[in-house]
């Protein structure tokens, strides 16, 4: 099975709408995974219906036995997250700050701190018109996005294998940190969506550095390229110089946000559709070459 992840570094460049477009342009069924569990939007565009919804447990949270706690404050001193202050002679846990590291329980002389499983989010399996899709929703202030992303990827691949699907496309999270690493690890091709601005170019460079760091093949598509053809050309030059590939330019069109507002894939705009078809064609060629 081949795996593609669509990333950007910078947020809001068009990852999700491009992922949905690629899903529709691919020949034959594909498996989709939304790895942006922090702000998961692919399901809004892919419609369909969830057939699995299950809690995602990761990490732990401290619980204090109020009958045993003497309010000595050893836990408060040991905690590096200010998550267990002693209030009115009682250690009280702030779940938003607790990382479940258990340092408090090591030092507690009364042995009165236990840990319960933390529900970090929710995992969904969905049936869409292009095939199965897995997505997740991380809870507010949670620290386990990488683990949930890994679970989204694992489930996507499992379902794909069960159904003899040989291509999986993942919608990646913004940034270059932990959840992005989990979304990228071991994929066949990283497709970076950028835009012709100094921020887009700056963030793309860091994304290509990350691809080099993990030794992954990458390709770059410039969205809204005509907002600055000069910056687009600079970006394409930089991409070529770094040994990555450019896989097309997509024009700006006010119809795209309007289509998204109607929860439609931007393929409904003819000039955008043509550009994305070319981009997808180049991506498929790169994938075949890496075979």
């Amino acid at each position, binding site marked *: 099975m081949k795996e593609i992840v669509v990333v950007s*570094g*910078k*947020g*809001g*460049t068009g990852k*999700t709408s491009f992922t949905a477009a690629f899903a529709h342009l691919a020949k034959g069924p594909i498996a989709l995974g939304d790895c942006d569990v*922090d*702000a998961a*939007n692919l399901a*809004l565009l892919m419609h369909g219906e969830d057939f699995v919804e299950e809690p995602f447990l990761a*990490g*732990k949270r401290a619980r204090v036995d109020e009958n045993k706690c003497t309010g000595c404050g050893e836990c408060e001193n*040991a905690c*590096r*997250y200010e998550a267990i202050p002693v209030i009115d002679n009682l250690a009280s846990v702030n779940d*938003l700050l607790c*990382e*479940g*590291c*258990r*340092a408090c329980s*090591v*030092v507690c002389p009364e042995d009165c701190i236990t840990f319960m499983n933390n529900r970090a989010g929710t995992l969904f399996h969905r049936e869409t018109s292009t095939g199965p899709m897995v997505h997740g929703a*991380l809870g*507010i*202030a*949670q*620290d386990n*996005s*990488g683990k949930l992303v890994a679970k989204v990827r694992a489930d996507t691949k499992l379902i794909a294998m069960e159904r003899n699907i040989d291509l999986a496309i993942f919608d990646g*999270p*913004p*940034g*270059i*940190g*932990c959840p*992005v*690493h989990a979304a990228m690890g071991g994929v066949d091709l990283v497709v970076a969506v950028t*835009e*012709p*601005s*100094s*921020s887009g170019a*700056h*963030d793309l460079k*860091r994304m290509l*550095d*990350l691809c080099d*760091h993990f030794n992954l093949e990458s390709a770059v598509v410039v969205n*809204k390229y005509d*907002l*600055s053809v000069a*910056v687009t050309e600079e970006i394409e030059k930089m991409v070529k110089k770094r040994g990555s590939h450019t896989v097309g330019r997509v024009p700006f069109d*006010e119809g795209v*946000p*309007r289509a*998204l*507002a*109607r*929860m439609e894939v931007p393929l409904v705009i003819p000039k955008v559709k043509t550009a994305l078809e070319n981009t997808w064609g180049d991506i498929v060629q790169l994938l075949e070459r890496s075979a």
Partner: protein
Amino acid sequence: MIISVASGKGGTGKTLISTSLARLWADGNKAVTYVDADAEEPNGHLFLKPDVIDEKRFTVKIPTLEGRTCAAHGKCQEICEFNAILSAKGSVIVFDELCHGCGACVLACPEGFLKETEREIGTIMHGDSNGLEFYSATLDVGEARVTPLISGVVEASTENVDGDRLVVIDAPPGTSCSAMAAVEVADLVLLVTEPTPFGEHDLILALEMGKALGRKMAAVINRSDIGSDGTRALLEARSIPVLAEIPFDRAVAESYAVSRMPMEDSPKFANSIVKLAQGLVSLTEGVSP
């Protein structure tokens, strides 16, 4: 007065709006600090072009045996929730990227042999942009855990803030712990959103984050004339004031593309920022000490 500029969704215009607000206030002779807390992809420097005053490497703590041989009780490995330390044959193996620096292993080591050493994960820059105090954090490429670095830059930039200074924190996207680290110190959270189903979906999450922290919130709608009305309805239902609506303006996009301050190129946009700034000041008068 600390204002965190946040959004659930990426690319809604956090950096555009926070750099513009900071510039406007600084040029109006207010004491202003701009803090770029989007340490994975920091962009504020591209627009404010600060002169560097100093740059410091930022470190987190990781455990080490300092070359000593231990009895390999395995307590460190047992206590570690993050699978970041293995105990084997009188020594330990530490997986740097997995370590949360919580110190539990150090406390658990029965011999007291485990110590902590510093590991670099990024850089905190302090600079000046024409009288505007500038801070930014940049995560090293390949590092996984950004939250300690964000807390680090927020702490460095806000530790000696007096009541009159306006601090504008440009937060990372999302609502996980890294975004929280940039929002939890705020007196007011300014949510930048857009009128699309994506914007609306992620705004719900951002509103939950503000609520969980008990922070006062206000919103600005960017690219307000393209899209749907759900975002406005949502904000109204939650009684979140909309301080300004910024219509799409190609001049802003073109100016921003080449690292200019769009206020200089689009009078329409400049007006929106002035209106937003006035709205923020009148909102925060009740908050300020």
